[in-house]
């Protein structure tokens, strides 16, 4: 009964959202009554949808296995937390969550802004029609409310044990919040072009929202990377898995977008790019949903295979993208009103870097498309991996960071001149050069690109240290958010280079009470235990490691067998130090009784995530400070 009510509420809200779209486009959006009406309808229809979702959560928590989706993805033995997270462990439920977030972004925007704010009515209308498109997709092709009465299974199925993990349970929500958060910027861009009044400062209206979405996306990608590292046992931070790439593309475009916003809000000279980027970012987010949910590519993340869903999503995305691009190209003259960009001004450097970001997005897209094109011509499956992406990303990032380095000194709308040879720029270059030299001499780092990346990374960090120095000593103003975010980027580049150069791994065969040496560490398999847990049994191996200084510590990797699916998983154990992780997994037992043990030394991997967190932190601080300035 409850499930029918939930479904009915969803259908009802679909109708109301459509009504909202019609009102906002049929009537005069400057009229106070219309503006209030559109805002009210939106609030009510979003309340219906949120209620429907909450009922669904209740159905999952109360083990209502007459709902097909819940029966397939939840189990009565699961802890409550995982009963809730099982909702987004597969296609239908995660689509429902996606729509919920879309609705909530719109609702938050509706709640905090004045009803007569520029572009608001039309933007709400555009958000509503996008919601309608997704709701129809949900109800027509992937209905989460489908029931299996009268033969409801007693205990449900079980969610995949690798999905029973806190990082996984929260990383999709963060990613979805990020992807879908760009709807605010997208809707405003379209409304701006439709209304055709170029004096409206649309950049200022969307800036906070876009940075917020970018923060969510950054955190979501970082959490995903961390999850793959310690739970999937992939043992690294990035794998160029198609689904990772699909998240990376909107991130790259969004990074270019939020930089572009700050340029065009100052001089409206880059407005044409800012508008185009807002369309591209949102299109790439939708493209990601299409790629993952149409079953086009094989990946750990891919959802159910159903061509029908792919076709619907493709048609919907096609209408949105081609529609918005048509509006864009018919309004070009309105968008190019700004003054030309001065060479060597701050905006010129940002524009150049936007081109680099564009190249990176394009290459990633090519890496996803190439195997598909190849397959349809030669009927063979191939995959594009790290060598392709590294060959493009490494030099591009290095070049971009050099331009970033110059842009620190540059001024808005003014030509940048080097006043003397002895300045912070040349000193930073000198220090970075000597750092690279010592890395080469002392730490024996020989990879050319690694050394170049370390140089570029330290160039950025040291340059910004000078900025901080200037601020502390001479009280010279600097943008603290830019300082933190870009120092995070510098750290990211150095950490990735060092990780690439220093990390190593080896598979060892060790019998109980025997030991082996690796990288100066003695690794002894001191005990094996059988452990019984509520939903799985496990074999736990206890390793005693002795470091070169003679200190001991223990690592306890496991192999688990889950009861419900009988699935066997490998649990890693990781010893974390400031510079490196010691990462250990156990494999199978060999005939002579010894165990295959995989040991990895992962250098600077925590620093990679820490850098990403620094970037998102600067975004959060920026949002807080913008809101404080408004009051």
């Amino acid at each position: 009964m409850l499930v029918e009510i939930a479904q009915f509420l969803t259908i009802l809200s679909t109708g109301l959202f459509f009504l909202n779209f019609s009102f906002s486009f049929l009537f005069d959006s400057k009229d106070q009554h219309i503006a209030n009406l559109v805002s009210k309808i939106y609030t009510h229809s979003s309340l219906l949808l949120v209620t429907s979702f909450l009922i669904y959560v209740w159905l999952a928590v109360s083990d209502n296995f007459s709902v097909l989706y819940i029966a397939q993805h939840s189990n009565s033995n699961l802890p409550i937390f995982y009963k809730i997270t099982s909702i987004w462990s597969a296609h239908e439920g995660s689509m429902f969550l996606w729509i919920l977030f879309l609705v909530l972004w719109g609702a938050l925007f509706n709640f905090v802004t004045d009803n007569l704010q520029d572009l608001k009515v039309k933007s709400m209308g555009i958000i509503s029609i996008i919601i309608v498109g997704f709701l129809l997709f949900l109800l027509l092709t992937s209905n989460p409310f489908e029931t299996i009465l009268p033969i409801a299974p007693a205990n449900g199925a079980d969610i995949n044990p690798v999905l029973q993990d806190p990082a996984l349970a929260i990383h999709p929500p963060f990613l979805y919040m990020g992807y879908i958060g760009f709807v605010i910027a997208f809707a405003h861009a379209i409304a701006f072009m439709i209304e055709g009044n170029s004096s409206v400062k649309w950049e200022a209206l969307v800036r906070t929202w876009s940075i917020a979405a970018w923060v969510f996306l950054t955190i979501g990608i970082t959490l995903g990377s961390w999850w793959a590292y310690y739970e999937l046992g992939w043992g690294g931070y990035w794998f160029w898995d198609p689904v990772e790439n699909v998240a990376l593309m909107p991130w790259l475009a969004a990074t270019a977008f939020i930089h572009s916003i700050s340029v065009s809000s100052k001089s409206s000279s880059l407005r044409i790019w800012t508008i185009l980027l807002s369309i591209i970012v949102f299109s790439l987010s939708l493209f990601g949903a299409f790629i993952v949910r149409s079953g086009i590519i094989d990946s750990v993340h891919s959802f159910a295979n159903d061509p029908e869903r792919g076709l619907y999503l493709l048609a919907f995305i096609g209408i949105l993208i081609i529609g918005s691009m048509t509006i864009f190209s018919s309004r070009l003259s309105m968008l190019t009103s700004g003054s030309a960009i001065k060479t060597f001004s701050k905006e010129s450097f940002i524009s150049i870097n936007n081109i680099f970001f564009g190249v990176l997005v394009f290459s990633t897209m090519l890496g996803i498309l190439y195997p598909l094109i190849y397959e349809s011509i030669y009927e063979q499956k191939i995959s594009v991996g790290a060598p392709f992406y590294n060959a493009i990303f490494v030099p591009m990032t290095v070049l971009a960071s050099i331009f970033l380095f110059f842009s620190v000194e540059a001024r808005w709308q003014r030509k940048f001149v080097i006043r003397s040879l002895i300045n912070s720029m040349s000193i930073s270059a000198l220090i970075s050069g000597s750092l690279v030299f010592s890395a080469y001499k002392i730490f024996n780092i020989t990879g050319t690109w690694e050394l170049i990346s370390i140089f570029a990374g330290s160039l950025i960090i040291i340059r910004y240290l000078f900025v901080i120095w200037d601020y502390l000593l001479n009280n010279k103003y600097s943008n603290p958010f830019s300082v933190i975010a870009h120092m995070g980027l510098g750290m990211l580049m150095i950490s990735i280079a060092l990780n690439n150069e220093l990390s190593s791994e080896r598979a060892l065969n060790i019998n109980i009470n025997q030991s082996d040496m690796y990288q100066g560490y003695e690794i002894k398999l001191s005990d094996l235990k059988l452990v019984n847990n509520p939903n799985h049994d496990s074999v736990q191996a206890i390793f005693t490691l002795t470091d070169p200084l003679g200190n001991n510590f223990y690592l306890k990797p496991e192999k688990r067998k889950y009861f419900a699916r009988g699935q066997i998983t490998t649990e890693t154990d990781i010893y974390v130090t400031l510079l490196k992780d010691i990462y250990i997994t156990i494999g199978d037992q060999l005939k002579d009784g010894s165990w295959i043990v995989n040991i990895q030394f992962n250098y600077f991997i925590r620093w990679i995530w820490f850098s990403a967190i620094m970037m998102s932190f600067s975004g959060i601080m920026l949002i807080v400070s913008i809101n404080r300035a408004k009051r």
Partner: protein
Amino acid sequence: MKFILRMFVIILPIALISFFYLYINDDDYYPGADYRNYNLPQFELNELYSQSPISNKDIQGTYLINVWASWCITCRVEHGFLVKLSNKNIPIMGINYKDDRDDAINWINKFGDPYKLIIHDFKGSLALDMGVTGAPETFLVSNGEVLVHYRGEVNTMIWQDVFTPVINKYELFK
């Protein structure tokens, strides 16, 4: 310049979307289907009921291999179709995948047995060698060579569009 930009932003998305449209609207487009041929991996496992050892030499000729488990809801949906196939004298070998033996036997007693024999792959080792990512999956095997590998539920439509063309091509089950 404006003209180039205009063409670029319209034509690029149209090209991309048409490509994907053609890619997934292809009549043969079944994302779960894989037509690469390879030899069935060597295995030594136990039969589910008798628990007697079973290996490649015990399964000869042309047959389907169906990977299933009692915990798999989709397998339950698929099961009726497999029973129909076995009534048409198409031999089906079952691989019981990562499952408890008692649960598996209860399941078969409840829903019927379309299988000639059932390999009990408790650790999923054979399934891993065969590239199984989950249940249900179905393979068409002839003389030790895998001709079709289908991931997901087999039903009348999949049988006609994915399996029948290959069966007709090699004139199998005659």
